[in-house]
């Protein structure tokens, strides 16, 4: 059984835990540097406000540890704010946070809450995936080695770069567990490759 650490300093972390537990994973919350000492097979960076999460990651002394865990190959799944935390560049001039994934993102790309919307689309080989956009960011450009998984309305809204998976939308809110299963496959792939 995979053990997933979920960043829980702010945002919709419980929703990810509910989905991952329903798929048979163990989950624990990461609130401070001490929690990073626990062994984990995968990491989730949930939705919320990226400005808040990014500041708390730094203030609570977690930034360097998270960055090196991700660079060392720990599978990570960032939704919405989590995607912004992983991006190398943020287009509104905000300083990048973990900056481990070669993508540029634009925050609040659809405007304020009245611009939030639901749609369906494909995610890699999967069709009819519900896409829930809440004051969502989009991916403006991708670097070498980034594989686009979802395009919607002319924007890139899901992508993978090796061990890093990001979505602008919120699969944890829809009841459709296929995106989380895709992430758990990434997790078990690494576990197999590492021989544990």
């Amino acid at each position: 059984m995979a053990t997933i650490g979920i960043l829980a300093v702010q945002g919709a972390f419980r929703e990810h835990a509910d989905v991952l537990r329903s798929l048979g994973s163990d989950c624990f919350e990461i609130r401070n540097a001490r929690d990073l000492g626990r062994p984990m097979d995968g990491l989730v960076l949930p939705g919320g406000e990226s400005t808040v999460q990014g500041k708390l990651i730094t203030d609570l002394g977690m930034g360097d540890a998270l960055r090196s865990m991700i660079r060392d190959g720990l599978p990570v799944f960032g939704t919405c704010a989590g995607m912004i935390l992983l991006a190398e560049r943020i287009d509104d001039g905000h300083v990048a946070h973990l900056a481990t994934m070669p993508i540029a993102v634009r925050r609040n790309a659809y405007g304020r809450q009245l611009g939030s919307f639901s749609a369906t689309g494909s995610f890699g080989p999967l069709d009819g995936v519900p896409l829930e956009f809440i004051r969502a960011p989009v991916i403006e450009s991708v670097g070498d080695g980034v594989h686009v998984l979802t395009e919607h309305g002319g924007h890139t809204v899901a992508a993978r770069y090796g061990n890093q998976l990001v979505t602008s939308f919120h699969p944890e809110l829809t009841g459709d567990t296929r995106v989380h299963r895709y992430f758990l496959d990434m997790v078990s792939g690494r576990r197999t490759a590492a021989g544990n």
Partner: protein
Amino acid sequence: MMESNRRYGLNKELAQMLKGGVIMDVTTPEQAGIAEDAGACAVMALERIPADIRAAGGVSRMSDPGMIRGIQDAVSIPVMAKCRIGHFVEAQILQAIDIDYIDESEVLSPADDVHHIDKTAFDVPFVCGARDLGEALRRVAEGASMIRTKGEPGTGDVIQAVSHMRALNAGISGLRSVRDDEVYEYAKDLRVPLDLAVYVHENGRLPVVNFAAGGIATPADAALMMQLGADGVFVGSGIFKSGDPARRAEAIVTAVSNYDDASILAEVSTGLGEAMVGINRDEIESIGNIRMAERGQ
């Protein structure tokens, strides 16, 4: 316009994204910037914070849309604004300026002593105050997609926030524990729709996110409300009525993220300077001031 229950779902989901966060009252773009930099997950734009509304007296209304726009331009996080209870035209105006959340708030003078706003008629989400389970579910029935316990705004005294959170929790566990065939009578007593009472009976929680508000002034106050079960906190007068707003705001944000870690709470509570002076529950009446929490039941 999107199908209305899908829109309601998206509005409840925005509240889910705010969880574990601190929503701060701000009166100027400069304060909004301080709040965002300190880690606020949203700001509440208003011309006067509750402590000053108390001091000024008179009728308190929706803020000037120009002032709210100035704050929208200053920050990238969600911006909320208050309208008077029952004043659906103020709400229409706030929706027209693309506000992220409307607070139908007892902090302002009520415009209607019987009816709250029919919030189902709007695309923009609403948060409403509540002192117990009945008030909370009546507001949800009217279309609120987020609840906050009322507390007593502008006092810096946490006692009412605690009392309302405990009352709400007691109501939920009471409804949770009754027999299935007793839920109908319970719903009648609470004056709430049966389907919402059934939801609480089956799930043991409100169908929407619930923040604590009204009188929170220190990191310890904020952590107290979190340990009592709040999903996050509103801090109104407590920040910009204190000696060092930026530091206090940061400390409250960290306290909410690690609300059950006493050593982190001790660290962030250290050397914050002067907290807002405040006004306690008994003094409110002796100086002839108003109890805002009793507005809009």
